[in-house]
């Protein structure tokens, strides 16, 4: 059922068994998992069932360090969350992403890829993907013309993605509204989390909205599922009982903010035409495609981060502006429209080029994990939003390992493309000086992938949540989603965050 909390009397107290804070990808995935149980689930969504600019304003904040998108425009604050405008790219993490790597400071999850396998399979269904198959051999048999460049696959392999068109707002709204045990409260922004005297458990959360009313929600278990920036913000802002904020005794909340660096890095020019559908995808049409990835063995030898390279027609890439320059409007709808419009115009101009070697040339764009950096972080501003919650400040900062890894990935691709006789690679200028591992070009994008601000660790001095996503020291408070990531992996985070959320859901069920 759905209740617009603005219509309730002031100081209403709501009670349930489980309280899920946030009805985006993680929150809805968990709520769906609790349908048809005997538990009363309170699902709190700060926005409405559709876009509301006044609520979207609550995501305003500031950024510093590496240029970033406006915080108001890179997440959607209504039922369904940022699936409202995501591209749908899904791939699981790799085994190495969970391992301790001595060349990657602060790496090493307390869980392994195997721990997530059953949940990845379930996440595939939640996201309406195909079978839980992400091997190149499988898809080459299933689809036509997935011809692979003949590269040495002990160095470079084809990492596969599937594509979801799931918009959780339209896809799951009716399901959630009709679920008897799921009580969705819209316009319910959590502004404070209150614990017991020793802060060993949470008693209730305070909820506000622009109507000026305040309500409380009590439950046996509370799951924070608002995205990495907002999760950290809420924990830091809940500082009436703990000066540093909840779960933050060791000053880890908000730290280790990670994005995926997404940046055009090199050009590959094919010596001969090569017919393949493997490395391209179209939204709503493509079932699976690949990006070039570096094997675990080579990552170890080279001591580099995990990243992939995707192909974009060079004629198009030379015209198209990077997203960091087109996604500048604080209104996410206008930012999206402006970016998509620019892409369409660029594609139309590029389509006029039909002759010459450039027709078989591509820009290789990197997507790479960011080395966990405690100085890359979310903190609170002194300025507050309309509900009295301090606004967030994001400081995005890279390390030398990030750039060195991008460079080395493209050097490896250049070597392999030449060895195989496929083509020649020209590395972009910003990567050529091997002594410069800190300067990034203006076109360096993030992927709108927010990770790591409530990182997972068995050691409470090094993380915010434990292996079960439970906040250290607080028995009934959990964080869902990519905020828990210890490292950020190579692929887009959504499939993994749904898998991790479903694993958390099972854990909470075991405690109920």
């Amino acid at each position, binding site marked *: 059922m759905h209740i617009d909390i603005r219509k309730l009397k002031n100081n209403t107290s709501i009670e349930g068994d489980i309280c899920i804070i946030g009805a985006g990808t993680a929150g809805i995935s968990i709520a769906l998992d609790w349908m048809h149980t005997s538990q009363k689930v309170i699902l709190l969504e700060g926005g409405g069932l559709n876009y509301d600019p006044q609520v979207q304003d609550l995501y305003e904040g500031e950024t510093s360090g590496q240029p970033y998108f406006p915080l108001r425009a890179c997440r959607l604050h209504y039922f369904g969350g940022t699936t409202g405008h995501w591209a749908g790219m899904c791939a699981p993490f790799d085994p190495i992403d969970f391992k301790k790597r001595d060349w990657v400071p602060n790496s090493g999850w307390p869980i392994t890829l195997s721990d997530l396998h059953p949940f990845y399979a379930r996440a595939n269904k939640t996201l309406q993907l195909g079978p839980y198959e992400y091997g190149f051999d499988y898809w080459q048999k299933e689809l036509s013309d997935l011809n692979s460049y003949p590269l040495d696959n002990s160095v470079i392999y084809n990492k596969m993605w599937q594509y979801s068109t799931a918009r959780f707002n339209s896809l799951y709204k009716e399901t959630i509204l009709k679920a008897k045990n799921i009580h969705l409260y819209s316009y319910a922004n959590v502004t404070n989390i209150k614990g017991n005297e020793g802060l060993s458990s949470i008693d209730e959360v305070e909820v506000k909205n622009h109507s000026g009313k305040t309500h409380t929600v009590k439950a046996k278990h509370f799951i924070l599922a608002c995205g990495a920036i907002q999760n950290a913000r809420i924990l830091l802002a809940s500082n009436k009982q703990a000066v540093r904020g909840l779960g933050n005794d060791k000053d880890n909340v908000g730290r280790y903010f990670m994005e995926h660096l997404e940046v055009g890095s090199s050009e590959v*020019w*094919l*010596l001969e035409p090569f017919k393949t559908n493997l490395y391209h995808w179209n939204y709503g049409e493509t079932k699976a495609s690949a990006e070039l990835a570096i094997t675990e063995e080579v990552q170890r030898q080279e001591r580099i981060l995990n990243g992939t390279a995707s192909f974009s027609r060079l004629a198009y890439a030379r015209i198209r502006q990077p997203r960091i320059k087109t996604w500048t409007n604080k209104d996410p709808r206008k930012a999206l429209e402006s970016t998509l419009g620019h892409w369409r115009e660029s594609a139309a101009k590029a389509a006029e080029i039909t002759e010459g070697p450039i027709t078989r040339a591509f820009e290789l764009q990197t997507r790479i994990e960011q080395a966990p950096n405690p100085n890359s972080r979310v903190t609170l501003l002194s300025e507050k939003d309309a509900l009295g919650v301090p606004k967030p400040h994001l400081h995005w900062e890279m390390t030398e390992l990030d750039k060195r890894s991008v460079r080395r990935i493209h050097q490896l691709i250049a070597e392999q493309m*030449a*060895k195989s006789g496929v083509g*020649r690679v020209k*590395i972009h200028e910003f990567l050529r000086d091997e002594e410069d591992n800190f300067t990034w070009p203006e076109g360096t994008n993030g992927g709108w992938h927010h990770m790591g601000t409530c990182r997972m660790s068995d050691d409470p001095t090094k993380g915010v949540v434990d292996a079960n996503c439970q906040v250290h020291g607080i028995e009934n408070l959990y964080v869902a989603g990519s905020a828990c990531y210890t490292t950020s992996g190579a692929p887009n985070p959504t499939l993994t965050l749904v898998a991790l959320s479903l694993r958390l859901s099972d854990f909470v069920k075991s405690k109920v």
Partner: protein
Amino acid sequence: MNRRIFLSKSAAGLVVISWPLSACNTGPNYDPAMVAEPLDLSKIWDTETIIKIGNLYREQYPKENERSLVKKIAERSPESIGERIQEDFQSGRTIMLDGWTLSMTEARQCALFSIKESK
């Protein structure tokens, strides 16, 4: 740019890089124009780019001249240049010029071509 165009542009310069056979110590089927033609690169580059890359190579290796370049490029025979380029990549005998990862042999071909075009 295809091979035929490349050769016709090079024809005027043939006499410039046609050394006496004894001086180059090459075989009886030697075609100097072939030595200075980076076959693979000519599939993706125009002559301006080949010259630019050739000049960059020559800046890095100023002591190499026409004679030494021809000798290094056609070390075994002109017909084996393609093999040599592949061997370069397999063994890591590569060079980066203007961001391009190239075989040393093909970079030298560009250098030789740039010398010809500068005369």
